[in-house]
């Protein structure tokens, strides 16, 4: 008879924390090192995306579909969108031309942040219903890397 897998209790609080700041949900449930590494990975993608494309790469109004993924990064995505709408979109045309990312750079910066958001969505689900595991030696499948 196959062994029944234990279903861990859902942790909605940890999921909310994971959205507010990537990795915070795992830190809250005691997986400190894992949470810090998650925070590093997601924020690396986010910061690098904004570094490449400027605040122009997060745009809730013009790139609505991309923002569905980018919004999973948490409030920082909404903050960058706010900066985009207030600093860039209302600036003089010459300033807008200087601060607007073009072509591949705009696409790549947008992609960095969208992929970071999608990765954080997975981490939010893991914080919500993932297995209970210690930060260094978690109890996952023996075939896992």
């Amino acid at each position, binding site marked *: 008879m196959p062994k029944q897998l234990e279903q861990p209790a859902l942790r909605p609080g940890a999921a909310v924390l994971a959205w507010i700041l*990537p*990795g915070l949900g795992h830190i809250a449930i005691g997986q400190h*090192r*894992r949470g810090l*590494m*998650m925070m*590093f*990975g*997601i924020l*690396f*993608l986010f910061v*690098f995306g*904004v*570094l*490449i*494309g*400027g*605040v*122009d*790469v997060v745009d809730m109004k013009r790139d609505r579909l991309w923002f569905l993924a980018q919004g999973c990064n948490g409030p920082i995505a909404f903050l960058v969108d706010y900066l985009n709408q207030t*600093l860039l979109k209302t600036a003089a045309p010459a300033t807008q031309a*200087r*601060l*607007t*990312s*073009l*072509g*591949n*750079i*705009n696409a*790549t*910066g947008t*992609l*960095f942040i969208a*992929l*970071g958001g999608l*990765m*954080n969505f*997975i*981490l939010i689900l*893991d914080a919500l219903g*993932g297995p209970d595991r210690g*930060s*260094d*030696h*978690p109890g*996952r499948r023996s075939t*896992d*890397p």
Partner: protein
Amino acid sequence: MTMLGWIPFLEPMNWLQSLWYVLLVPLAFGIAASYKAMRVVDMRNYWRQVGLMTGQIVVVITALAVGLILFVKLLLPLA
């Protein structure tokens, strides 16, 4: 000289336009760093696993790109 007037995070790196494909490396690293933080069993292996996955992503995407270039440049003209 144009770099001196660059404001990070506000102004885009439009001067990287012709080298955009190099950005695959940090993209692969960021994905590997966040994915392996969840998947790796023993956190002592974390950085090794991140390096391995980064390499795998870069090699596979580069191979796909080379394959596509060969297909478009060599095979399609024959058709």
